[in-house]
């Protein structure tokens, strides 16, 4: 037990800061501290905006409007949040077992490839009913992602290969694999993209129903969001309510205790990596069938990595992943309205550092005692 206050003895402040570990962490406190962190981030971001000559209030108001201002932009925010929810859930389930799968990006790309293969090979002809083609693509995407998780999973389970390195490397392989197809085999007239998918392979969007509900006109939110919401509830149920989830939590907290309780760690390592990969793969499938409608290079601006951050911010709680993904979706969308990169990314970074740093206050209580009170 080291007391940080004792090490900073050289500094003679009129008061002393002491950090004491908290015995319990009530839920309201967590919410309050996170809110405080967001406020602090907004103030710091405001200073940055002022330094570059903008008005913080106006900029924030503009960003808020650009992400949540009306149903149209909010729908776009939800569209951005959809792949984030799925890749974040992939991170959540793996991290719960302390499997550091940072390959959600690659599993996302491979899921996209698997889904594309159904219509581009083609396995099913374009005139197939959407009722058959979409479930097939969902399955293909999930299986392809699971395969991309299975490989590092079995390497970890059988030969103790570090999953951080293997999943990271598999990201590059997945991107290169996709590139081979979009540059050559499935290239449309030499462009670096596949031909557009047949309409039967598009996930239904809200705007598709605008003839019945006029309000939906132009709304891009697609069925993938429903996949994400269902997946979040299922992952929540697995972790907190199922026998399998109990095993995952036990292995994550203390693998030696899990072994002592007769739990097969090898099998669970493979299965969890496969589920994690399947969720990320589903994210890739949903993005290309719901938004892009073709296989191309730039289908992800690093969703797989953002998902890792979201998973941490959600404290590995699958249901918390939903609001945080929506917030991030909004931030990505609104940021682009100010500057393509630069300032919005800066503000996003400040927000992340504040939120992750605020975790300290959740774990420790800060006491301030005036020096005069000391004997």
């Amino acid at each position, binding site marked *: 037990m080291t007391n940080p206050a*004792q090490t900073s*003895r050289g500094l003679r402040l009129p008061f002393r800061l002491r950090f*004491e*570990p908290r*015995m319990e962490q009530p839920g309201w406190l967590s919410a309050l501290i996170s809110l405080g962190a967001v406020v602090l981030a907004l103030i710091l971001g405001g200073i940055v905006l002022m330094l570059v000559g903008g008005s913080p209030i106006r900029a924030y108001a503009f960003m808020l409007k650009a992400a949540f201002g009306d149903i149209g932009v909010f729908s776009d925010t939800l569209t951005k949040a959809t792949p984030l929810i799925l890749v974040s859930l992939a991170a959540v389930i793996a991290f719960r077992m302390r499997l550091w799968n940072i390959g959600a990006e690659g599993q996302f790309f491979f899921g996209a490839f698997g889904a594309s293969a159904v219509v581009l090979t083609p396995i099913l002809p374009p005139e197939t009913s959407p009722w058959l083609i979409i479930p097939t693509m969902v399955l293909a995407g999930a299986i392809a992602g699971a395969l991309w998780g299975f490989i590092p999973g079995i390497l970890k389970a059988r030969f103790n290969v570090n999953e951080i390195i293997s999943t990271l490397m598999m990201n590059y392989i997945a991107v290169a694999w996709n590139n081979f197809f979009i540059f050559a085999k499935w290239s449309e007239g030499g462009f670096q993209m596949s031909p557009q998918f047949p309409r039967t392979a598009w996930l239904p969007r809200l705007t598709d129903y605008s003839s019945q509900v006029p309000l939906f006109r132009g709304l891009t939110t697609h069925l993938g969001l429903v996949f994400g919401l269902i997946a979040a509830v299922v992952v929540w*149920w697995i972790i907190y*309510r*199922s*026998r*399998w989830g*109990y095993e995952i*939590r*036990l292995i994550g*907290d*203390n693998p*030696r*205790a*899990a*072994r*002592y*309780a*007769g*739990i*097969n760690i090898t099998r669970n390592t493979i299965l969890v990596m496969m589920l994690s990969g399947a969720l990320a793969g589903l994210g890739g499938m949903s993005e290309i069938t719901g938004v892009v409608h073709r296989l191309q290079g730039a289908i992800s601006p690093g969703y797989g990595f953002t998902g890792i951050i979201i998973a941490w911010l959600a404290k590995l709680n699958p249901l918390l992943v939903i609001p945080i993904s929506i917030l991030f979706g909004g931030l990505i969308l609104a940021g682009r309205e100010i500057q393509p990169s630069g300032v919005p990314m800066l503000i996003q970074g400040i927000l992340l550092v504040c939120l992750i740093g605020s975790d300290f206050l959740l774990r420790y*209580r800060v006491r301030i005692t005036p020096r005069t009170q000391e*004997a």
Partner: protein
Amino acid sequence: MSKNENAVEMRAITKQFPGVLANDHVDFDLKKGEIHALLGENGAGKSTLMNILTGLYHPDKGTIKVHEQQVEFRSPKDAINHGIGMVHQHFMLVPTQSVTENILLGLDDPRFRLNLSHYHDVIRDLADQYGLHVDPRVKIWQLSVGEQQRVEILKTLYRGANVLILDEPTAVLAPQEIDELFKTLRSMTEEGKSIVFISHKLDEVMAIADRVTVMRKGKVSDANVLTSGTNKQELARLMVGREVLFNLDKVEQAPGETVLAVDSLEANNDKGLPALRGVSLSVCAGEIVGLAGVAGNGQPELAEVITGLRPPTAGCVRVHGRVIVGEGCEDSPRTNTVRNVIDTGVSHIPEDRTHVGTAPNLSITDNVIMKGYRQSPIARGWSIDRTNARGHAENLREAYNILAPTVDTHARLLSGGNLQRLILAREISSEPKLMIAMQPTRGLDVGAIEAVQNLLLAQRANGAAILLVSEELDELISLSDRIYVIYGGEIMGETMEGDPEGIGMMMTGTRQHSPSTAEGVGR
């Protein structure tokens, strides 16, 4: 300097931790040339007091005088400079370096060029002076635990310690090694050094200490108790504040049929070296069988093989005649899984409560269902019945007196005794046929030890077969119906009498010559 001069004088030491007043106006004197035992249950505040004396903690209030001079320690280094050294329970040595290198580590003296052979000689002289026989050139990993402890003592002596604090120094030693240690301690006090001896073991306190200070709940409950004018029962009473029954009510009962039969078992340790060399033993229903031995002679490996955690290289383990673990047995199961063993009705109290027995960041509920979550009523199909799991946890908390605010409390917030009660609650509630209990009372205070021992006896009365592995001879002798002694991965002999001397000889590697009267009993 007169003999009655105080080497250390602590006055009104107060230290507050979040939620606990660890030391409440504690006074402590250490005379020059004395061995002073500091006695108290876990959490009585002994470690806090000594950590203050060695400069690890800063007291909130109070003064410390060393050799009549007021001091204020800002770091352990200050304390060492004032001649105060501590030998911790867990050694702080670098295994791949030699004895000399470990002793010189962190010192300013060999500044740049290390003339090792010169220092080897210096350290050998110092070692000989106090009878701490150890070769300075040897690497730490090649030394026995007792020798490593000598290196730790040498380390503090080399740094010029006049006051030595030993935290439970005998916990890891064989009886003969304890005698050696006591000889060393006496030769050190003859040289004018003063020793603080922290221990739970009343026999040792009576044997070695001149004076005793007893702490209870952060306060000194009795100071200046002379060992010449007291006895073990008296000390125990002072320590827990009530009379302790050292004689457990163990009813005579005839053992039933053989439950556990271990036959010529061989296994390797983590380094791949043979740890078990043909161990055979048996345990019957309604019988507690002790396994005595100094640490590191194959006890954990044996427990791990029986519970399926470690694959054997040869031999068989049978429960009720059926092979549960084996290598090369006629009816070996295809897999030596832990689950198979658990389902056979074998429960296991592991040696390492925090790293093996529990999951620190999961709730008490999640910890007590660790073995039973696969079966109804905790399991319901693929899911876990939360209501039943909580109810089960509530019942166990009540029945086993686990002190915790709720069953949702994380296991890491429980004290050692409560954690052990949680493990016992879980392992006993499954109504096991066979129980492998590893050091079930280690590190617990007297009150908790009694509770745990009575739980084991209750299991015996219920007809469970219990293999009790312990390094506490007293405990083994008072609880066991029979005792095996293990040394170097081999059973040295078996005894029913429980004479400490004979067991001590076997514990240090002397094979029992004539088969004792116990041979053949209960087979």
